[in-house]
């Protein structure tokens, strides 16, 4: 393979041009990743392959010397994921190097058929190993992106809203599994500190079912909020959930509950020394109660 690498160094510009031409011919959706970027990727790969560090086990793509090439492939895969290339397009990027290399080897080794076959074989395996590696890197990169997006969606799906000065509400919508419950509850506790809220309403009208673990998370959060100096009011417990809670033997004795979010809000206002009053001919307004504040 030493000879092969020298061949690559001597013909680098031509290999690059032929490789890019071949890619253009095969690409179906060229607009996704720009020509300039593809060229840059191809150039980097060629330079790295033709100049491996000394003592690299050349034929073995998993050997230490090829680490820089593997890192570069990972980097390319990340950029391809970001551009929306498919995994096969990403692998195709490397596989297109094969015909270019075969042509070059044939030209240079016409007089030595044994060597010709060997180098073709080596090239074939090597490019396959690279294509496999970039495909795996692609999947890894995409999984990371998906995990991050899922996390972001979780956060988006449970916004803590400020209802009034000192009163926050967490309307939970959808099924709570243990990890989501934990995350939701942590964000509530942080919101309490950030907004300096003495009252927090957890509204579970939008939660279809509650299991033991989730009920325990709820209780722990309410207790933690109390340790921080805030009071939680639980609202919107559906009849089925009330039954489940009792059935599971969980006691909500120490928890203040209200059937509706609006009732919980009214209670929080009252506890913070305000009352909802209706003036003649006007809509109800919130007013501070004299003497308490």
């Amino acid at each position, binding site marked *: 393979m030493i000879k092969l690498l020298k061949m690559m160094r001597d013909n680098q510009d031509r290999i690059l041009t032929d490789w890019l031409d071949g890619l253009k011919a095969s690409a179906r959706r060229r607009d996704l990743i720009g020509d300039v970027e593809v060229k840059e990727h191809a150039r980097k790969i060629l330079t790295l392959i033709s100049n491996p560090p000394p003592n690299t086990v050349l034929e073995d793509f998993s050997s230490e010397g090829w680490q820089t090439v593997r890192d570069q492939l990972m980097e390319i895969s990340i950029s391809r994921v970001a551009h929306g290339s498919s995994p096969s397009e990403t692998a195709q990027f490397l596989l297109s190097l094969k015909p270019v290399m075969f042509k070059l080897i044939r030209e240079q080794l016409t007089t030595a058929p044994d060597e010709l076959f060997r180098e073709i074989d080596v090239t074939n395996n090597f490019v396959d190993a690279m294509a496999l590696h970039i495909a795996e890197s692609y999947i890894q990169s995409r999984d990371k992106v998906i995990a991050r997006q899922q996390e972001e969606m979780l956060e988006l799906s449970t916004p803590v809203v400020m209802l009034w000065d000192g009163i926050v509400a967490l309307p939970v919508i959808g099924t709570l599994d243990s990890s989501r419950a934990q995350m939701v509850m942590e964000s509530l506790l942080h919101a309490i500190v950030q907004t300096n809220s003495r009252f927090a309403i957890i509204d579970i009208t939008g939660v279809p079912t509650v299991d033991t673990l989730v009920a325990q998370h709820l209780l722990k959060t309410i207790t*933690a909020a109390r*340790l921080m100096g*805030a009071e939680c009011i639980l609202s919107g417990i559906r009849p089925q959930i009330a039954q489940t809670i009792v059935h599971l033997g969980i006691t909500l004795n120490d928890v203040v509950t209200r059937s509706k979010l609006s009732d919980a809000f009214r209670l929080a206002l009252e506890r913070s020394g305000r009352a909802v009053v209706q003036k003649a001919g006007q809509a109800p307004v919130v007013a501070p109660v004299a003497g308490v504040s």
Partner: protein
Amino acid sequence: MERIPILRIGSLLLVTIQVDLYDDLALQLQDDLSTRIADLGATGVLIDISALEIVDSFIGRTLANIAAIARVLDAETVVVGMQPAVAITLVELGMSLPGIRTALNVDLGMEYLRQAATGGDGVGTDHYAE
């Protein structure tokens, strides 16, 4: 020996814990507070733990003891500023400190103590149900 300073504001005592509490230092604070409450006839004690990175069962128990001793000496105690991570951990540890009044910060804690002294309903959070 090292001591945690106790500040006096009117009839209230204010403690801000800023050092990593080793056990004897916590016990010393408990002693000092008991003496000061009695000597000054203090009506309230505010302990600011916003700088505390953990509360383990020993520190938790010390806080509970201080509150209980103060109550016997006719003073209210409020613990303020517990961080969310500390609160979550304390609950998981199994300590919910039911006998302790809490408030989000020093201002709200002071407000509660002043109202408690004049017999009004407080702004602190107690472990009360309906």
